[in-house]
């Protein structure tokens, strides 16, 4: 029966090619605009570490007090040096790491080559196991290396390719900031977006990956300046990087792994206890106002998904709805034009269900054709937004199998929905009246 409806549908669509083309294009445009903006939305709203994000927490401590809070009463989104180091020292989570962004210079061996600037993060040894950072060669460093301020470094696969042609470089040294660092690990491909371990500096997205990771303690010992954002509620009392470390300026990110509800509760209590201890020591003069959010909640709180992306998606969905309303109107016209044909079929014994099947098949074919057209437009659209949107976001939007499949599915479902009302009207055609009027 289906093949018969298919044939009927195709014959009907061929009879009015203009109208058919119009419906197919409308669905194609509506679906592809939605899918294009969705591809961007999907890219920026994704979970960068889905298997673990609910166990990774970002603590926030209110070291500025009521005067430094925003209208929403939120404490700063990063830590000052004093609190970050205290949290590391107390070591109350299963794994934890403070980190800050560095941009040291690095000598490139070979005559006549200028030094280059590299980007990276100063982190603790637990950073790598906590974030499941993949290694191609070697591994992170030991806790001892943290304690000893060891001159060791983990480099990215990209830097390894550039400096060592991708060979295993563990044990070799790099001249960073005028000092030799021994390579202990080379990362595999690792480019989590949003950059959840450094939302404060990247705003969420970054086209550049980190070249190096060095021990936090080492970076502090050699006065390796923070290359990320610094926010101060009041100017540091002393000048220089040392003064920065004794100030309440915030420039350090912190992440802790807490595996279950008990651990989370305990850590909350610990943070409050810490703030109370600071209060009794006279450093804070206000009640604890801490936050402890897991990665998805923190990304949401920091508005990592740009509002432009959300508004674009909404507007594109609006376009899809307009296209669907358009299709409903055209299908209605098309179906009712065939009232006499329906009348004949009904008079010959076709039940209403048969009429539904016939006309929904026709709507489905329009949807499928619209979907195929939509595939092409979606591919073009994603290419187009890549050219006009900011690079850090555009780089993330891409066409893949699931997006293409979704395009087809959305197109067919939309067309079927659009076909429901016209089909309902068609099924209600009174055979007697139609036969009589002819």
């Amino acid at each position: 029966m289906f093949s018969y409806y298919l044939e009927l549908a195709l014959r009907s669509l061929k009879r009015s090619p203009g109208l058919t083309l119009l419906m197919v294009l409308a669905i194609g445009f509506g679906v592809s605009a939605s899918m294009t903006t969705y591809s961007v939305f999907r890219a920026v709203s994704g979970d960068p570490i889905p298997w673990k994000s609910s166990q990774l927490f970002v603590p926030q401590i209110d070291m500025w007090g009521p005067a430094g809070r925003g209208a929403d009463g939120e404490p700063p989104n990063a830590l000052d040096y004093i609190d970050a180091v205290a949290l590391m020292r107390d070591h109350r989570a299963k794994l934890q790491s403070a980190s800050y962004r560095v941009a040291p210079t690095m000598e490139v061996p070979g005559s006549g080559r200028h030094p280059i600037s590299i980007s990276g993060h100063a982190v603790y040894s637990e950073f790598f196991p906590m974030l499941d950072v993949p290694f191609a060669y070697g591994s992170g460093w030991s806790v001892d290396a943290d304690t000893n301020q060891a001159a060791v470094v983990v480099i990215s696969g990209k830097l390894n390719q550039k400096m060592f042609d991708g060979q295993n470089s563990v044990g070799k040294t790099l001249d960073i900031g005028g000092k030799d660092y021994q390579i202990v690990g080379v990362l595999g491909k690792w480019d989590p977006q949003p950059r959840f371990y450094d939302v404060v500096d990247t705003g969420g997205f970054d086209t550049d990956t980190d070249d190096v990771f060095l021990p936090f303690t080492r970076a502090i010992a050699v006065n390796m300046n923070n290359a990320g954002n610094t926010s101060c509620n009041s100017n540091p009392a002393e000048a220089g990087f040392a003064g920065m470390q004794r100030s309440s300026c915030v420039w350090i990110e912190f992440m802790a792994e807490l595996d279950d509800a008990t651990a989370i509760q305990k850590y909350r209590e610990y943070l409050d206890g810490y703030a109370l201890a600071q209060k009794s020591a006279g450093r804070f003069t206000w009640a604890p106002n801490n936050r402890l959010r897991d990665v998805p909640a923190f990304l949401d709180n920091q508005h990592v998904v740009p509002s432009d992306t959300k508004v674009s998606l909404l507007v594109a969905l609006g376009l899809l709805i307009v296209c669907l309303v358009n299709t409903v109107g055209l299908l209605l016209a098309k179906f009712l034009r065939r009232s006499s044909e329906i009348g004949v079929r009904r008079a010959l014994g076709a039940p209403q269900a048969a009429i539904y099947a016939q006309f929904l098949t026709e709507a489905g074919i329009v949807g499928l054709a619209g979907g195929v057209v939509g595939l092409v437009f979606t591919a073009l659209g994603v290419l187009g937004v890549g050219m006009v949107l900011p690079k850090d976001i555009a780089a993330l939007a891409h066409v893949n199998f699931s997006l293409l499949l979704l395009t087809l599915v959305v197109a067919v479902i939309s067309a079927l929905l659009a076909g429901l009302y016209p089909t309902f009207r068609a099924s209600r055609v009174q055979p007697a009246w139609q036969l009589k009027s002819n």
Partner: protein
Amino acid sequence: MSTHPILAALRRHKAGVILIALQIALTLAIVCNAIFIIGQRVDRVNRPTGIDEANLFVISQQWVGTPEDGAPDAVEKIDSLVRADLDTLRRLPGVESVAATNSLPLFNSSMINGITLTPDQKNSTLSATMFLGDEKLMSTLGVQLVAGRAFTAADVQHQGFRDDALPPSVIVSQAAAEKLFPNQSAVGKTIYSDTKGTTIIGVVKLLESSMVETFGNNSDYYTIIEPVRQDGNISRYVVKTRPGQQAAVMAAARTALFSANPERVIDEDRGIRSFAEIRHEAYRADRGMAILMAVVCLIMLCVTAAGIVGLTSFWVGQRHRQIGVRRALGARKVDILHYFQIENLMIAGGGVVVGVVLAVGLNLWLMSQYEMPRMPVIYVLIGMVALLALGQAAVFVPARRASRVSPIEATRAA
């Protein structure tokens, strides 16, 4: 022409009429808001920076092997390197002016300080972007002094990257001056940043802050220039070239700086950038959003127009015989044309009324969700006129076809 027969006919096509009206309403609601977004972005991109942007480029570079700040002589060492660099650049052929600076408008790297009128004031009067540069900065950027005096070499201090000492004199933008001292001259007044005081010696007409992601109001122009060479790991120079020589000077600058002192990093891609490029990058997101909205609007209007053509054509086909009868009874071609035009005007009019409500509702919702400002009425009016015109344009082709239906049709069997 009486509208009664039109209304009577419309009542027989309720679903089709509602669908067209609904489509027009939705289109109006979305197009108004999208065009409003485009308008905002265009306004933002067209904001003046206050500087003379032509023939300007910026060098950002990092020192290698200089002691990180904290060492006692670090600042002095870097300062002598910076002065040597400024000298090297000044001597390049084609260079008109060179200055040291920490940032520029649209540079997206900024130092923002809370400014108060007394040392113990609790909440700051305004947050100002601080530009730190030498005495050549204002003339290189071409900012216009409107009161007081410019800096001389004697005013200029130098300090480390994390040193927040405030110099004894500063120059403020007019926007900041008016906010700090409404209706009086700011020159000679003292302002405070974190309890430290400084005297305003001059006012510049316009100087935009370095942050791009702000929302077009006066606070984007709260800027203060400190006569300070900031001697940190990263040094930044802004160079004004003679017309037509920018590309040559940009290329020569890299070579000259490296041959003067190779212990530095100048990034291949981003180390030396023209101001035109900085501007282009700064507004990429706004341009992208405007283009995206424009494309969506265009598609939506086309789809709606095509939908009207399609449905009206269908109605014309359906009413062939009736049109023939009307023609046979003496209706002129133009009467038939008008019939369909008025019919469309009535449907589109209904749609537009609903659309205005939806447009305002959508704007209010966007305001509550995405910090969008209120949409001025003019956008709604433009949208209304545009959609009514679109409806008329779309209906014209099928309506003309209808007007050409021959009176003979009346005699033919349906």
